[in-house]
Structures are given as structure tokens and as C-alpha cells.
């Protein structure tokens, strides 16, 4: 009877130990995954877009941002009507994710 009890206790301990080990391994994997994801999100690259619109609203051009661009800048002439093309929007679009050089 006592041998039986010892066996049950041993099995119980082994099961608890195994459960703890599995939990430890999965939790550490989750932590590493989350940390990596967090670091990648920090280093999201952006593409800057400049949108220029004709004053008569009949033409819109979308191009990459150039240094010196600002909203309200006259950016040439409209190829359709010859009116001024004015930069109406400058915004960033997420492009790709790269890994950071250091780990916080």
C-alpha cells in the first residue's frame, strides 16, 4: 500500500515537473517572439509621398518626397490646363520592417 502511495506521489511529481518545464519553454519562446516583434516594429521604414494637385482640381500627381517640399509649395505647372500645381499633402506610408542594431 505504501509502495503504491509512493508510486502515485512520484508520478504526480513527475507530471508537475514536466508541466512546469513545458510552461517554461513555451513562455520563453513567446517572450522571445514578442520581443523580436516589438523591436522590428520600432524600426519600421517609411516611404514619404508628396501629392501635388492642380489649382483647378483637374490633375493630381503622386511622387516621392524631395527635401525642400512643403505643403503649399508651387510645384510646377499642370500639364492639362497650365495652372499652378500645389503640394497638397505629404505623408508617410509604412514600407518594410528591418531588425534593430541593438536590443533594449
Amino acid at each position, binding site marked *: 500500500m505504501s509502495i503504491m502511495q509512493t508510486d502515485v506521489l512520484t508520478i504526480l511529481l513527475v507530471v508537475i515537473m514536466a508541466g512546469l518545464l513545458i510552461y517554461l519553454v513555451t513562455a520563453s519562446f513567446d517572450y522571445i517572439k514578442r520581443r523580436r516583434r*516589438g523591436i522590428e516594429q*520600432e524600426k519600421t521604414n*517609411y516611404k*514619404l*509621398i508628396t501629392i501635388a494637385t492642380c489649382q483647378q482640381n483637374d490633375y493630381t500627381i503622386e511622387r516621392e*518626397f524631395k*527635401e*525642400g*517640399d*512643403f*505643403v*503649399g*509649395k508651387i510645384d510646377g505647372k499642370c500639364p492639362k490646363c497650365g495652372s499652378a500645381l*500645389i503640394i497638397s*499633402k*505629404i*505623408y*508617410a*506610408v*509604412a514600407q518594410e520592417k528591418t531588425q534593430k542594431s*541593438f536590443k*533594449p
Partner: protein
Amino acid sequence: MHMQIGGSDWNSILSILFWLVFMLYFFTDLPQKTQFLRYEKGVASRLAVVESLVKESISKVKMYLHKLGVGNSDNLIGNSLENYFAIEPVSIEPIDIIKRLDHIITANEDKYKKDLRNSIPNVGVHMLNNIAVSLAIVSALYTVFKILRHYYLLGKKYENWVLLMQLYLLLPQLVKELMPYVRAVDTFMKGIPIGDSAGPLTAFKLAGLAPRIDIEEDTVYSIVEIDNRKVYVIKAKGPGATVGKPGKAVAKIAEMLDYKVARIITIDAALKLEGEQTGLVAEGSGAAIGDVGPEKIEIERIAVKCGAPLDAVIVKMGSDEAINPMTKEIADGVEKAYQKVLEIIRNRTKPGDNVIVIGIGNTVGVY
């Protein structure tokens, strides 16, 4: 027999070990000392990350200053890092506190800009504003680093593990919140509109290329007619990085109009709560402006004097989005805010009324 003796030996060793661990754990400071070491190392490594962020931002500013042909960039940056603090006025006597606070802020800003102008005389006013804001970002990062280092060294000096534990728990979040500031240096130096430019961008959409009339330092207004209402659009003078003095501009325009103003509308970027969508536009009452007091109180006082309802239109965004290049979601939010302002003007004012619209925020990259 031999096996039994071996078994009892192991039992004795194990029981001695158990008691030893028990005594060490409950009757000595060993657990705290171990935790202290763990926290100390953790804080030191994260503090090194904050220091690297400060150094990265300094080298970025140096690079841009070098590109502009500024020779004494080391002196200039060193000067901006340590100087130009403002001491809060006495608050135990509240009379005139706003005037005193405004005086201190204005004097500090003037001194900073004059010194910067003397150091970089050959740069245009808009570029100078961009440099001033970039240096202010570097200075803010450096101040945060200095404060964190102070508490770290204090915790180490007095073996205050509670202080180190708080730093250990706080630093991962702080590091994440400080990272966008480094990227913001590039944004300001290149003159790219940021999330906080949502207010001035909405003002631009209303005013278009109508003449900009100077009314206050770094602040302009334009007059446009919308459905027979005279709309006075106030914003900071772009496209350099500045927030202007919108409160004082409102006061001057209201005085110019003999306080005959039907409505005052403020548009600003507002911090969203976690889980809220970026670019969401909401409307409320009051002055949507995030300054320390002088400009906001001016708008409120003028609204009361004119008996004009004060509308607030906000574009929601995260704190990192507010200081980094404007995202498409925020740009779409600006379009919605513009439509909302038009709706307020058309539905809540009468033809012939004077309306003041103020685009609050940093006008970097927006004319």
C-alpha cells in the same frame, strides 16, 4: 546495511542544505542583495540604450549642421543641452501668474533664438526654426537621460533597491517612448510635416494660398470668405518648425473686429487612448491647445469677451505619431477635420458673421 547508511547520509546533507537555504532566505538580506544586483544590471544596460539614443540624436544634428556649413556645432549643441531652463513662477500668490509665466517663457525663447541666430547667421528663418526644434528634442532626450542616471546612481549609492526596482520596471516603456524622438530629429531637419501639423494643415486647407498677414511673432492670419462668412484663419508661420503664438493672435484679431466674433474654432492634434484609431476626428467644446497656459487662457478669455461659442476639433494620434512624419491615416483625418470645420461654419453661423479658425500645432512643412 551499507545502502542504508548511504541513504541516511544523503538525507542529512539534504536536510542541512534545506535549513541553510531556509535560514539564508528568511534571516538574511541575501534575496534583496541578489535582486539589487539584478535590478542594477538591468537598469545599467537600459540606461546605456538611452545614452546611445542621446548620442545618435546629437550626431544627427551635428551632421545636418555640418551640411549647412556651421563650424562651431559642438559648442552650439553643448550650449543648448545645458542651458535655457525656465523656472516656474511663484504659485502661492496666483495674481498675474499667467502674465509672469508668459513673460518667463517668452524671454527664454527670445534668448534662445537670439543666441542661435548669432551662432548661425547665414540660415533662413524657417531653417533656423527647424534647427531650434531639433536642438530642443536633443536637449529633452539629454534631460531625460540625466534624470534617469541621477536616480540610478542615487539608488546604487544608498543601496536603495526599491528605487532601482522602479527604474527597472519603468525603463523598457521609457526606452520605447524615447525612440521616436531620435527619428523626429531627421523629420524636423528635412522639414517634413508631422502628426502635430494636423491643425496647421487643416488651416492651410481653409486658407489655401491666400495672403499670410503677420500678426504676432511666428504667427500669421489669412482672410477667406466661406458662404458669405468672413473667416479669419490663424496658424503658425510656415513652413519652418514653429507653433507661433495663436492666443495672442486671436486677441489681436478680436480687438481688430471690435469683439464682433460669432464663433471661434480651434483644430489640434490630440493624444489617442490605447485601442483608439489613429486619424479619428472628434468635436467638442473649449480651446483645443496643449500649451502650458498663456495661449490657451487668452483664447478662452476672448471667447468669453465676445460671447462666442468655442468649438474644438481634434485629430487623434499616438504620442510617437505626433512627432514623426504624418501618416496617411492622419492626413485622411485632416480631410475629415476640414469637412467638420466647414460644417460648423455653414450650420452654426449666419451669413455676414465673423468667424475665427485657429490651426494649432507645429507647422513644420506646411505653408
